[in-house]
């Protein structure tokens, strides 16, 4: 009998544009086809009644308690199994919860295809001896040896079926009698939502759906590895023309920690990180990071919970203390804050709604700080609501080849407490197009406005800054705009635009390998930052933003670091420099995540 392995080469897609659709990033590794397989590939499998896929796992502390969570789910009466024909290919619409807790790989078998009969009496008797609840309908029983990690203890796996309205299959792992009473087996409940029609499907579609299911499982971030095996039905009660789709999963460890020491900028610090990737069984993630340094201490604790079945809807709560030093403004800022945010997708856009409460403490970095910055020192409390919308159709977030990005962010502070009150809007737009000869042309535009509400002027910690290797190149970091005695104060409105041409390295060294990470780039950047007088009309604002434009042009090399960051080394020629701006003409180095 032939088996088809569907295995993608990408280990852990995170989400967003890199979570490539099938055909772009994933590759199928086909095993040498055997004769039987050719017949399978072209055949359609009738699916008028099918069993949903489900692997139910639940954490348990002792054998006795294994039963109780299950009985909580359904009353102890047997219901006639019947799945409506319009239900999904695998899984049932509306049931989207999964629980994972494990320390050993497990095997679960799902069945598709026409169902002729349910488990025979021998299975039933066996199941009762093992302690399965009476209302389960047993389809297959298997004894498996556990993975090497669980010290060779045998496990019994039983594929059973819950009553129709629950719509899941259960996989029951029970230890043999010889095991001690400590927590052993795990019982995983996976009710997966895989969309699909009910029409008979060719094998390739089954493969594609399985691959999508695999991507979804990996995206939760709780599995180290997920493998899918598709095989024909085997066993006594094999369904005719049925397929077995098997997901082999290996979970991450329940608690991972890291410890680093960091030295830099006259400061040494010790960083401790802890991560629990799956706290309560539904892919909740808790991370904690603590940094203890000679000068500053900072920490961050975050709790992230996706909606079961729909990873794009998620909720997270963060508690943090961060300190920052801004030598361009001679300012030191310590923020202690709490934030709660909820993300959800609407059609192709992704929205995030967030409340944030921050206690900000500003101080001067040196005794020579200007008085304008000194006046801003002290404590303040900001409590704000913000909303962000992102539409991203690029194929990658670093050096994209095609697609566009639009981000719009607004923040309203002061109406939920605190003593800082403003309305802040900013947007980011980026367009990319591929040209001949492997070049890409990219245009981007950023802009923002801060309107203080009430009589208090805006705080230096809320204003916008412009300039630097990640925005208008050719100028020093955040060194454009209003300043006082050499300290840059930021501005309440800004815009910045960039036009780039990315080409592969000349003569293409290292083509196909290391050389693919580099690009040469030619750029033209422009921008302006100023304070607006809000009493005047929009024409006056536009006029003010259009006078004294700073711009620069140049060329350089870009290095792509994974999918997150990029390094640039550019030769820049700044123009339109106003009095008070600090420039960095000549060679400029930049590293970051977000570039103009």
């Amino acid at each position, binding site marked *: 009998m032939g088996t088809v392995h569907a295995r993608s080469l990408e280990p852990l897609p995170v989400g967003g544009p890199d979570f490539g659709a099938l055909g772009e990033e994933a590759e199928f590794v086909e095993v040498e086809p055997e004769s039987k397989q050719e017949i399978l590939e072209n055949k359609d499998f009738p699916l008028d009644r099918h069993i949903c896929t489900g692997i139910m796992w639940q954490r348990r502390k002792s054998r006795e308690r294994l039963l109780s969570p299950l009985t909580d789910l359904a009353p102890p009466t047997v219901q006639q199994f019947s799945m409506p024909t319009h239900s999904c290919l695998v899984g049932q619409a509306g049931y989207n919860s999964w629980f994972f807790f494990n320390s050993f790989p497990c095997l679960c078998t799902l069945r598709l295809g026409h169902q002729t009969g349910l488990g025979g009496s021998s299975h039933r008797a066996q199941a009762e001896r093992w302690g399965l609840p009476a209302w389960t309908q047993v389809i297959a029983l298997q004894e498996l040896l556990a993975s090497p990690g669980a010290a060779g203890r045998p496990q019994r796996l039983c594929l059973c079926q819950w009553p129709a309205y629950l719509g899941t299959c259960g996989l029951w792992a029970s230890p043999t009698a010889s095991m001690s009473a400590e927590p052993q087996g795990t019982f995983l409940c996976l009710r997966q939502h895989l969309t699909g029609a009910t029409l008979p499907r060719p094998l390739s579609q089954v493969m594609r759906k399985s691959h999508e299911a695999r991507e979804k499982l990996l995206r939760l971030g709780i599995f180290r590895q997920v493998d899918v095996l598709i095989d024909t039905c085997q066993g006594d009660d094999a369904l005719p023309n049925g397929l077995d789709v098997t997901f082999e999963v290996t979970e991450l460890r329940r608690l991972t920690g890291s410890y680093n020491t960091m030295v830099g900028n006259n400061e040494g610090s010790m960083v401790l990180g802890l991560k629990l990737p799956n706290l309560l069984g539904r892919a909740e993630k808790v991370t904690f990071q603590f940094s203890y340094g000679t000068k500053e201490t900072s920490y961050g604790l975050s709790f992230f919970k996706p909606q079961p079945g729909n990873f794009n809807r998620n909720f997270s709560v963060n508690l943090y203390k961060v300190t920052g030093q801004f030598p361009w403004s001679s300012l030191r800022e310590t923020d202690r804050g709490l934030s709660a945010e909820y993300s959800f997708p609407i059609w192709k856009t992704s929205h995030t709604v967030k409340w944030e409460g921050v*206690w900000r403490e*500003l*101080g*001067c970095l040196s*005794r020579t700080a200007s*008085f304008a910055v*000194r*006046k801003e*020192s*002290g*404590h*303040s*409390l900001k409590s704000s609501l913000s909303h962000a919308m992102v539409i991203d159709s690029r194929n990658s977030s670093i050096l994209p080849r095609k697609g566009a990005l639009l981000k719009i962010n607004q923040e309203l502070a002061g109406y939920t*407490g*605190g*003593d800082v009150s403003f309305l802040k809007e900013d947007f980011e737009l980026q367009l990319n197009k591929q040209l001949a000869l492997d070049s890409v042309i990219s245009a981007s535009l950023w802009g923002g406005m801060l309107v203080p509400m009430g009589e208090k002027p805006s705080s230096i910690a809320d204003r916008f800054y412009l300039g630097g290797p990640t925005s208008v190149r050719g100028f020093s970091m955040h060194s454009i705009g209003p300043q006082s*005695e050499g300290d840059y104060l930021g501005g309440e409105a800004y815009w910045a635009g960039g036009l780039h041409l990315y080409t592969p390295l000349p003569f293409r060294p290292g083509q196909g390998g290391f050389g693919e990470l580099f690009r040469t780039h030619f750029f033209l950047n422009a921008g302006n930052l100023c304070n607006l007088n809000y009493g005047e009309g929009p024409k006056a604002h536009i006029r003010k933003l259009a006078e004294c434009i700073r711009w620069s042009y140049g060329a350089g090399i870009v290095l792509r670091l994974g999918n997150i960051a990029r390094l640039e080394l550019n030769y820049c020629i700044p123009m339109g420099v106003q009095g008070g701006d600090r420039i960095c003409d000549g060679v400029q180095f930049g590293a970051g995540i977000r570039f103009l």
Partner: protein
Amino acid sequence: MLVRLVLHHPYPQAFLQMCNLPIKVVCRSNAEYMSPSGKVPFIHVGNQVVSELGPIVQFVKAKGHSLSDGLDEVQKAEMKAYMELVNNMLLTAELYLQWCDEATVREITYARYGSPYPWPLNHVLAYQKQWEIKRKMKAIGWGSKTLDQVLEDVDQCCQALSQRLGTQPYFFNKQPTELDALVFGHLYTILTTTDELSEKVKNYSNLLAFCRRIEQHYFEDHARGGISVRLS
């Protein structure tokens, strides 16, 4: 030179007015954080910011104004000694009363210290400041003193000052010096804010008269946004 003065206590104001320098007083809630050394009062002159009375005096002297030029060495040493006494005794007693006496803390200090900030920052900052002051008190040995002991110490300090002043109009000769400004500042604050301490000070009539005289002479005459609360 126009001096902008940010203060909690009026003694630098008195000092600068005694030097006949024009000043402008600004009250800000974040004065402590603005100061380069973290302490009030401080002055902002042109581009420079100078905090605490000692450095302010030095700075003003460097600019050519000084009140203690007419004193000889012995008197200067004596003046320094008295200034240390006032700083150690009166200033610490004021802090003690503000932050370590439960009744005053609850009724007055928390509300006053936290008033510029919104909830919950007002509570957090007030508790933080109180913890800091208590720690400082413990470090200098005042942590275990009771209110009565503190009042005793204040009484002794006032007695020493009163004896030194005697019937003279100012502490040294007929001209005011830095000591006069400092003593005036502290006594004025005590007389206008606290009850228990002011009772002790009122026992010494020549100190009262001294304060009155300086207030009349320098503040009411100059009439520059100054403090003009009647001393009773």
